[in-house]
């Protein structure tokens, strides 16, 4: 908390542009030794871009990065590490085939020249020390793949502590940790801070942020909104307001033409469970509505779409139009009237090596063939009609899917879903990686489909998407569902609060 000392790292007017996107503009931020500095913001606010610049993964388009008051030209992530900066990303970058100890010591081992022998015993002893510091008594010889995700997360952090560290960035370090393990991690963070390390803590869990940080910086739309040093009196709602405080004046929420509550639900989930992810939820979806489902990473929302559709194991009851759907039978889901638009186009939605026409009809082959022979004229007709209906910019039905832009690919995948004449359309991250113009078109399409009586389930990490384009929203947290938000209650503040609640049993545990 010695804020008067010279900052170790300072970002000075940093800007970063990607083709067509401005990820960061004019961000100035100082990281002081002996300070836990929380950086918070919504998805896409620019936190990760900023940390990637610090890690030497990305180069800034504008501005300078200073280390100890001197401009820092970062050539490589290795160079950054040598200077005492360690960034622990949320995605695990561990080698599952190696032992725990080898994983911890990997950056150090990688620097040993090929003609030198590795002193295994010494490396193991050192890794055991570091693991013990993090409260892990795992034998370094244990294969990494035998560890739980929580333990792996700690191994990832342990790796950052092998060398003397001056700046430690932790991006969602405890997303998989139990409250007990988290508390231990916080103690280590405090201890490192007292040793003079500058710690950057990125988290969506705002109550934890308030509990541990010395300074909180809020980012929004690539800019630094505020940097709070005096945390007395700062509350979670205040932080939420600061994170989402955009002008929503021009946005018109989707209006209902009829009251869907009176219609029979087309899709019902009862005691719906996915082992380790979703712990028994009930959900009803009615024709004509766009139901938004949000939640933080790890809340269970990312497995929901595929689990309903039957791509992964689940238990509980899924009913479509009164018929119970068998588990793990995607074809039954399609025939029952469900269409899925998965989150990952490149690796899930699109058949990239095949033509646009083939992508349009790939889930309705039976209708487009007779005794197994493809009816090419009919396929061409269907494709041409869908290309027109969705206004997809393609040279023709024969164009290879992989050559289309993300937005046009998404339109084709949507049209595939519609060709199967579904009663329920499930979309997962429907506009991820799509430019603004195509986004608006896709929202318009969804709205039109809902007005025609389709039931739409839209699962998204983007709060504005849920606020503006759903007429009912539920948030997931720790594998359970929040209450419904409808009408004027659908605000980013309310949704963010619902997403970051502690589950009841953990709150009770903390109180006791």
């Amino acid at each position, binding site marked *: 908390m010695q804020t008067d000392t010279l900052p170790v790292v300072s970002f000075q007017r940093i800007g970063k542009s990607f083709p067509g996107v401005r990820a960061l503009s004019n961000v100035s931020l100082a990281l002081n030794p002996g300070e836990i500095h929380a950086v918070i913001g919504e998805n896409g606010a620019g936190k990760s871009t900023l940390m990637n610049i610090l890690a030497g993964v990305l180069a800034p388009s504008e501005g300078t990065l200073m280390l100890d008051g001197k401009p820092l030209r970062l050539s490589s992530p290795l160079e950054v590490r040598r200077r005492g900066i360690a960034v622990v990303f949320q995605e695990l970058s561990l080698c599952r085939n190696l032992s725990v100890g080898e994983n911890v010591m990997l950056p150090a081992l990688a620097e040993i020249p090929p003609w030198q022998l590795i002193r295994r015993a010494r490396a193991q002893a050192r890794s055991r020390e570091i693991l013990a510091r993090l409260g892990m008594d795992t034998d370094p010889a244990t294969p990494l793949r035998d560890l739980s995700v929580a333990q792996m997360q700690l191994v990832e952090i342990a790796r950052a502590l092998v060398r003397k560290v001056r700046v430690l960035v932790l991006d969602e370090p405890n997303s998989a940790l139990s409250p007990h393990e988290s508390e231990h991690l916080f103690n280590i963070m405090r201890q490192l801070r007292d040793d003079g390390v500058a710690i950057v803590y990125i988290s969506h869990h705002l109550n934890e942020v308030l509990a541990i940080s010395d300074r909180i910086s809020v980012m929004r739309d690539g800019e630094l909104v505020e940097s709070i040093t005096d945390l007395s009196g700062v509350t979670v709602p205040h932080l939420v307001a600061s994170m989402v405080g955009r002008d929503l004046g021009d946005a018109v929420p989707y209006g209902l033409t009829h009251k869907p509550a009176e219609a029979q639900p087309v899709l019902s989930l009862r005691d719906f469970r996915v082992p380790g992810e979703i712990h028994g939820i009930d959900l009803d979806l009615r024709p004509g509505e766009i139901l938004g489902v949000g939640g933080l990473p790890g809340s269970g929302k990312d497995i929901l779409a595929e689990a309903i*559709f039957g*791509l992964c194991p689940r238990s509980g009851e899924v009913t479509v139009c009164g018929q119970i759907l068998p588990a793990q039978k*995607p*074809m039954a*889901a*399609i*025939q029952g009237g469900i269409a*899925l638009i*998965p989150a*990952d186009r490149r*690796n*899930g*939605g*699109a*058949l*990239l*090596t*095949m*033509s646009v026409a*083939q992508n349009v009809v*790939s*889930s309705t*082959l*039976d209708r*487009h*063939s007779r005794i*197994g*022979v*493809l009816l*090419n004229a009919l396929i061409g007709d269907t494709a041409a009609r869908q290309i027109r209906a969705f206004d997809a910019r393609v*040279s*023709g039905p*024969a*164009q*290879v899917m*992989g*050559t289309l832009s993300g937005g046009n690919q998404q339109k084709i995948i949507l049209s*595939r879903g519609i060709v199967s004449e579904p009663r329920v359309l499930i979309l997962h991250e429907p506009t991820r990686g799509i430019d603004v113009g195509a986004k608006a078109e896709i929202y318009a399409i969804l709205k039109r489909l809902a007005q025609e009586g389709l039931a739409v389930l839209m699962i998204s990490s983007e709060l504005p998407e849920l606020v503006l384009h759903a007429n009912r929203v539920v948030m997931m947290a720790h594998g359970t569902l929040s209450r419904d938000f409808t009408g004027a209650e659908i605000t980013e503040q309310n949704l963010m609060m619902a997403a970051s609640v502690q589950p009841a049993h953990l709150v009770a545990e903390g109180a006791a």
Partner: protein
Amino acid sequence: MTGSLAQPATKAVKKRFSRFGGRETGVALALLVMCIVLAILNDRFLTTNNLLNIGRQVSLLGIMAVGMTFVLASGEVDLSVGSIYAFCGLVTGMVIVAGYGLFPSLMVGILAGIVIGIINGLLSTYGRLPSLIATLGMLSMVRGAALILTDGRPVTVNARNGANPDVLGQFTFLGQGAIAGVPMQLVFFVLIALAGWFLLARTSFGFRVLAVGGSTKAARVSGISVEKVKIAAFALMGGLAAFAGILSIAFLPSGQAGRTGLGLELDVIAATIVGGTSLAGGEGTIIGTILGVLIIGVLRNGLVLTGVSPFAQEFLIGLVIVVAVAIDRWTIRERRV
């Protein structure tokens, strides 16, 4: 206005060309160049006799390559085809020698091939083994089964060994006969290639094979049963390898478990890949495969005609495979974008 309309049109034509012609055009061009060079070097090359000879020589390889196109396009590989070829050919030969009729003998051999193919498919899908490993194991097991069955001795299909003379006549006709001067083996290859082309390009099964090989996940989202499609591709491969093996023993007319079709799987995979089928799955055409088979056949024939030593032949064939696939890989970016 007309200009802006015309531009997308030409672009579309180019796309169409590159989609349906690009891959095969390169291989076809290479084949044409090879034929021209050989025709100049040796005046016996372009004779009807020699061309029919090439056709017969590549037929068995070609029949198997048609099956391999399906397996590779579905994103898998089958290393056991040489062993299936030997095993099923020998089984059919033994059944005929035992005095059974032509039809049951053929059925036993072909069904054996299909069953082995289904086992390959089951191991590679529900068994969760990489097909490289599963079929490597089957390569050895099926070859071993053939050795056990024949006790390592050659099987010769003739009347002295017990074959019914009528059946023997019909059987050897399949391997050695000709219709209007066209060898039966070539007739079968042409028929199977046509059927294979239709199956891959024009049916929902072919569509599913390409979809599964292109992206397992996207195929599942489309409601395609990835496992069933792959097992069917392996079964088709097994049946075709068996049929090729049967034609081989009908031609010679003998076989030996320790020798027949040894290393044949590599020739089959090489021909299929030279023809533009992607080892990664999702891409492949029967026309390309036929061209790939012809390149290898013409090359081998040409090298013999021009008197290149057998040792140098081996070297040159390997070189052609590497160069052909390298050109294909290096130009892949231009085709994709």
